[in-house]
């Protein structure tokens, strides 16, 4: 398809691919984690794997905001819609994620709860204005990229004196999660994923800049390339990472310089800072409790905080047993390592969040590489049987 042509040009892709093949040392392997689901999606959608040699591996990280929302928070959202009778506004891709007992926002909507899909926080504000006698809650999820629009909605609601609008805030921070993954082997050696570098999330960096990733090179000695989401961006970033590794350099480089600066968008940062504060810890699906990794609404804006406004019950929420999403989100396992993949669990009948979101790893393997993955699973199974 002929669009965004300059970033999807086949001849350029082949040139980059040839450079990668020429420079990648066949005697070693390169494991690069793309933190962000946007990269995972781009890699699979364009078949980027086919353009890199077999010893360059993409390790998929936890960077899909839909995948990492813990099931308890999703149950809370369902409770807001069902027990508290609010109009719950959510972005579309959250609607099908299964919570406890495999109930999703879409399924409770079918049973009569007032769940509405919105395309922006401003749509949610509009719904609040038009329904003054109803409480309207916006389900705020996402990384640093989606936080400023949520902050803007809260400030606007405050300016207008809206008394029926609040946000159920689940915004999370990427640097803290990466740190957590790198610390994991110290805590549990089973969790050791060898990583040679990171493809840094570019959309996040348009807001926070590249500076917040400098700890990765300084403290953890891992190269980082902030990479755009087009397939050629990914290829070029892989080449840049290979060069760093080969030359023994450890830096934060910026492939996405056409948009990202070191400082980021300071206006957006100030707005976020005005409305939100750090939570001491927040649970991530797959990673468990991660210190200083999420935002809460500041007490000054408490009337717009759904957690302050509504009484949410303590509940025990359990993941589907044998769903490997947690290990997959940490980069420790791949979808083919999950027994449920492709037989019990498919996008039409998802068991875990990784299969729901279009940016989740399991969905990417199912949607774009199903044939290979099922073949590998069959081979692994045969080998295991032979060994036994």
């Amino acid at each position, binding site marked *: 398809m002929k669009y965004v042509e300059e970033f999807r040009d*086949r001849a350029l892709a082949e040139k980059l691919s040839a450079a990668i093949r020429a420079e990648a040392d066949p005697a070693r392997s390169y494991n690069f984690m793309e933190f962000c689901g946007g990269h995972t999606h781009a890699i699979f959608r364009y078949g980027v794997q086919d353009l890199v040699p077999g010893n360059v591996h993409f390790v998929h990280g936890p960077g899909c905001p839909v995948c990492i929302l813990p099931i308890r928070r999703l149950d809370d959202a369902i409770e807001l819609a069902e027990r508290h009778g609010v109009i719950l506004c959510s972005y579309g891709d959250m609607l099908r994620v299964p919570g406890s007992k495999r109930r999703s926002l879409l399924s409770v909507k079918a049973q009569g709860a007032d769940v509405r899909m919105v395309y922006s926080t401003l749509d949610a504000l509009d719904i609040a204005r038009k329904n003054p006698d109803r409480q309207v809650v916006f389900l705020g999820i996402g990384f640093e990229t989606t936080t400023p629009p949520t902050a803007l909605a809260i400030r606007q609601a405050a300016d207008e004196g809206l008394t029926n609008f609040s946000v159920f805030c689940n915004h999370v921070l990427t640097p803290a999660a990466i740190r957590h993954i790198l610390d994991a082997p110290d805590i549990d050696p089973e969790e050791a994923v060898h990583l040679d570098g990171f493809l840094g999330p570019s959309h996040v960096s348009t807001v926070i800049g590249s500076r917040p990733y400098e700890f990765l090179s300084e403290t953890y000695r891992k190269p980082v390339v902030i990479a755009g989401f087009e397939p050629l961006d990914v290829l070029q970033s892989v080449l840049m990472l290979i060069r760093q590794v080969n030359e023994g350099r450890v830096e934060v480089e910026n492939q996405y310089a056409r948009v990202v600066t070191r400082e980021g968008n300071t206006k957006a940062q100030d707005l976020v800072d005005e409305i939100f504060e750090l939570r001491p810890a927040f649970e991530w699906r797959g990673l468990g409790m991660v210190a200083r990794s999420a935002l809460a609404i500041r007490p000054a804006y408490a009337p717009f905080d759904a957690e302050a406004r509504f009484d949410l019950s303590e509940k025990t929420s359990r993941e589907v047993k044998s769903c490997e999403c947690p290990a997959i989100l940490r980069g420790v396992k791949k979808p083919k390592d999950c027994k449920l993949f492709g037989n019990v669990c498919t996008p039409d009948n998802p068991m875990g969040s990784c299969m729901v979101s279009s940016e989740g790893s399991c969905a990417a393997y199912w949607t774009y590489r*199903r044939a290979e993955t099922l073949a590998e699973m069959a081979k692994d199974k045969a080998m295991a049987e032979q060994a036994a």
Partner: protein
Amino acid sequence: MTAMQPIRAKRFHADARVTMSHGGGGRATSELIASVFAPHFANPLLEQGHDAARLDRPAGRIVVSTDGHVISPLFFPGGDIGSLAVHGTLNDVAMGGAQPIALTAAFVIEEGFPLADLERIAASMGEAARRAGVPIATGDTKVVERGKGDGVFITTTGIGVVPDGVEIGPDRLAAGQAILLSGTLGDHGVAIMSQRQGLEFETTITSDSAALHHMVADMVAAVPGIALLRDPTRGGLSSTLNELVEGTRLGVLIEEAAIPVKGEVASACELLGLDPLHIANEGKLVCICEEADAQTLLAIMRTHGEGTDAARIGTVTAEEPGFVRMTTAIGGTRIVDWLSGEQLPRIC
């Protein structure tokens, strides 16, 4: 079925709305039909005035197809539910290689629906049928209580005739055949989405809604051996191709760079996180034929307004049976999957 024979046309007030009595089968029903539908649908079959229309028996085999149309919004850039209900069914008939000879139309109208809008829909249906050269032979109207419908639902049935020697069907698929597409993907879906509540965006994209049977007639006349015709409507090209190969010994390999997509459709998809391969079309067809006939058919398609952008997009293969695979724009490969669930725009 109620015949649509006019009893007495009545002038309705500009703000008049459909009431339950319009569906009661009495005078009001007749007046509605006489005033709103009959003037726009007028044709000799309808004028027979029976509950059932009598058609002359044509030579060849009969094809029949029926389709319910429920869309929101009812009016969109490039069309409305009326023209869509005509085109959709004509195309279903044409995909059998047949030429449609008559249509029927059944309306389920919600109480309170503005008569002016109903008339607009009837006019557009009448116009679409006239342009297609296919009469609306008989019809029916029902009214449901307010809240029990979504404005208007239209079910159309089309009857057509397949010329002898044309044996279009999935059983004719074989490895090595060429896959042709009659034009750009996603225009209809994006035009509709641009009008969806909460998503309104500015675009010059209009729906591709069109009747394809004239183009099909020329194609079938030149190459009676066409293996398969399909219109990639709901679920888009991806679902159409998957439907063909799932559970068979054949696969499909398409070439992303060869698939025509308008720049504006591509940008809208990019923005919303949607794949043009999954988006609905209402005036496009996929044609699968022997390699030797591909160029002839492309040339014929390109002589029609609906086929100006026709392109050869891929091949039927014996490898990877059951899967639709694609060489991506950058030269990688991947599966093209069914659309699962609804298309939900992504968040970031």
